[in-house]
C-alpha cells in the first residue's frame, strides 16, 4: 500500500516528464553545446570553443557572417513591419465588433478567424494566384504589371499581407473576449461623463485589457521572429536574398542537400534565441512598468 502510494505520482507525471526531458530539455542543452562545435549531424560534434560565434559575428570575409547579418536584418524588418499591424488591426476590429448596433458579430469574427486555420503552404498557394504576374488578380485590379515576388518593396508587402491574413484572427478573439469581460458600468460611467467613442477607447478599453495586450504583444513578437513559411513559399527569399530570413539560413545550413553545417547553424539558432529572449523580457518589463 505504501509502495503503491509512492508509485502513484510516478505514474501520473512520469510519462510527461520523460517526454519533456527527451524532446525539450535534452535538445535545448544539446543545441547550446552544438553551437560550440563543428558538427555535420552524422559524426560526433568536435569542440571548437567560441569559433562559430567569432565567425558569425566578426569575420567579415565569411559567408556565414553575411548570412547571419542579412538574415537577422530581414527577420527584424519582418518583426518591425508585422507586429504593430498584428496588434492594431485586430484591436480595431474587436472594438468595432463591440459596437452595440453592429449585427452578425459571430459571422464577421468567423470570416476573419478562418484564414488562421489554413496552413501557410495552402494560404501561400492562394495568395500566389492573386499576386501572380501573368494571371494575377492584383495586377488586373490595379491595372499594373508587377512581378510582385521578385521586386522590392512588393516582395515584403505580399509577405506582410499573407501574415496579416492568417494572423489577425487569433489576436482578435483574445481581444474580443477581454473587452467582453470589461464591466459595462465603466463604459456607461464614461458615457455619462460625456466621453465619445475615441475617448472611451483610450481611457476605458485600453487600460482594462492591459494584460491581454501585453500577452499578445510578447507572444506575437516571439512568434514573428520564427518566421519561415511565408518568405519560403511567397518569394523563396528573393529578390537577391532580400527576404531570406534567419530561419531559412539555419534550415539550409543544417539540413540542405550538401554536407550539414549543424554546428554553425546551432550557433545562429542560439543567437536568434537570445535575441528573442532579450526582446520578450524587455517588452514585458517595459509594458508592465509603464502600465502599473
Amino acid at each position, binding site marked *: 500500500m505504501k509502495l503503491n502510494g509512492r508509485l502513484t*505520482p510516478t505514474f*501520473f*507525471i512520469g*510519462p*510527461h516528464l520523460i517526454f*519533456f526531458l527527451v*524532446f525539450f*530539455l*535534452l*535538445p*535545448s542543452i*544539446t*543545441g*547550446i553545446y552544438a553551437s560550440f562545435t563543428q558538427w555535420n*549531424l552524422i559524426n560526433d560534434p568536435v569542440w571548437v570553443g567560441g569559433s562559430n560565434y567569432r565567425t558569425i559575428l566578426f569575420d567579415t570575409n565569411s559567408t556565414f557572417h553575411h548570412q547571419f547579418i542579412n538574415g537577422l536584418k530581414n527577420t527584424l524588418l519582418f518583426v518591425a513591419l508585422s507586429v504593430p499591424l498584428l496588434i492594431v*488591426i485586430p484591436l480595431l*476590429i474587436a*472594438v*468595432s*465588433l463591440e*459596437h452595440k*448596433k*453592429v449585427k452578425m458579430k459571430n459571422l464577421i469574427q468567423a*470570416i476573419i*478567424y478562418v*484564414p488562421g*486555420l489554413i*496552413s501557410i*503552404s*495552402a494560404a*501561400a*498557394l*492562394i*495568395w*500566389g*494566384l*492573386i499576386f501572380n504576374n*501573368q*494571371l494575377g488578380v492584383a495586377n*488586373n485590379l490595379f491595372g499594373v504589371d508587377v512581378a510582385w515576388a521578385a521586386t522590392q518593396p512588393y516582395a515584403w508587402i505580399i509577405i506582410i499581407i499573407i501574415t496579416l*491574413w492568417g494572423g489577425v484572427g487569433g489576436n482578435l*478573439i*483574445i481581444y474580443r*473576449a*477581454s473587452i*467582453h469581460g470589461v464591466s459595462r458600468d465603466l463604459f456607461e460611467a464614461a458615457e455619462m461623463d460625456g466621453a465619445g*467613442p475615441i475617448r472611451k477607447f483610450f481611457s476605458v478599453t485600453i487600460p482594462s485589457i492591459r494584460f*491581454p495586450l501585453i500577452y499578445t504583444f510578447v507572444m506575437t513578437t516571439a512568434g514573428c521572429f520564427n518566421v*519561415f*513559411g511565408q518568405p519560403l*513559399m511567397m518569394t523563396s527569399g528573393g529578390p537577391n536574398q532580400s527576404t531570406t530570413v534567419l*530561419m531559412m539560413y539555419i*534550415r539550409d545550413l*543544417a*539540413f540542405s542537400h550538401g554536407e550539414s553545417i*549543424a554546428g554553425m547553424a*546551432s550557433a545562429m*539558432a542560439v543567437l*536568434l*534565441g537570445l535575441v528573442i529572449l532579450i526582446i520578450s523580457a524587455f517588452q514585458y518589463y517595459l509594458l508592465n512598468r509603464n502600465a502599473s
Partner: protein
Amino acid sequence: MANRIDLSKYVAYLFLLIACFLWVVPLIFGVSTSFRSQTEVVNVGFRLLPVNWVVENYMGVLNNTSTAPILKWLWNSVFIATSHALLVVAMVAITAYGYTRLTFKGRDTLFFVLLAISLFPGVVNLIPSYKIIDTLGWVNTPWAMIFPGLAGMGNLFLVRQFMLGIPKELDECAKIDGANDFRIFYSIILPLVRPVLIVVFLFSFTGSWNDFLWPVIVYTDVNKMPITAGLLLLQDIYGNYRMIGQLMASALIAIIPTVLLFLFAQKHFVKSINLNAGLKG
C-alpha cells in the same frame, strides 16, 4: 450627441465591411479558380466566378498519384493530427491530475521549473530534435510529428488551472468511499474537465495539421509526408503557376478538414479563448 453615436456606428460598419471583404475574397478566388478550366484561367482574366464550372482540376490532382499523391498526403495528415491530438489530451489530463490532486514533495516547484524552462526559445532545440528523431529511426515516419509535441507545457498549464478550480472535497469524499486515484481520475475529474480537453484536442489537431517547418525538415520521402509539406512540392510540380487550377484544387483539399472542424466546433474554438483570457486577465 445622437449624431456622434450614429457616426461611430457607420465607421465601425465600414471598417468591418472592408475587413471582411479583404479576408474572404482571396478564398473566393481560390475556390472559383479551382473550378475553372485551364483555357478559362488564361483567357478570361479578372472574374469572380467561373463561366463554366468544371471539376477537371480536382480529377487531375487526384489522379496524379505518381509525383503528387495528394490522397496519401491527406491520409498521413489525418493520421498524424488525430493521433497527436488524442495523445496530447490523454497525456495532459493524466499529468495535470498529478500536479493538482496528488500531494508529493516539490510538486509545485517541479511544475514551475518545467514551465520556466519551456519558455526557452524553441529554435535552439530544432537541430538536436532532428538528431534525436534520426537516432530513434523516426525520420519519414508519422512518429516524428506525433510524439515530440507531447513535451509541451502550454496545454498542461491550461488544464492544470482548470483542475485547480475543482473542489478538493470531491476527491476526499470519493477516497472515504474507498476509491483510489485512478478511479477518482477516471470517474470524477475526467468528466469535469471535458470542456477544456475538447479545446486542447482542437488546437492540437489544427496545430499539427498546419505545422510547416518541422515536416519540411523531417520528411524527404514524398509518400510519407503530410499535406502541408506536400503543397510546397506542388509549386514546382504544377509548373510554378502554369497549372493554376490544379494548385488551387490542391490547396482547397488541404484546407477543407480544418475549416470543417472549425464550422462544427466554432463554439469551442471561441469559448476556449474566453477561458484563456479569463485565466490571464
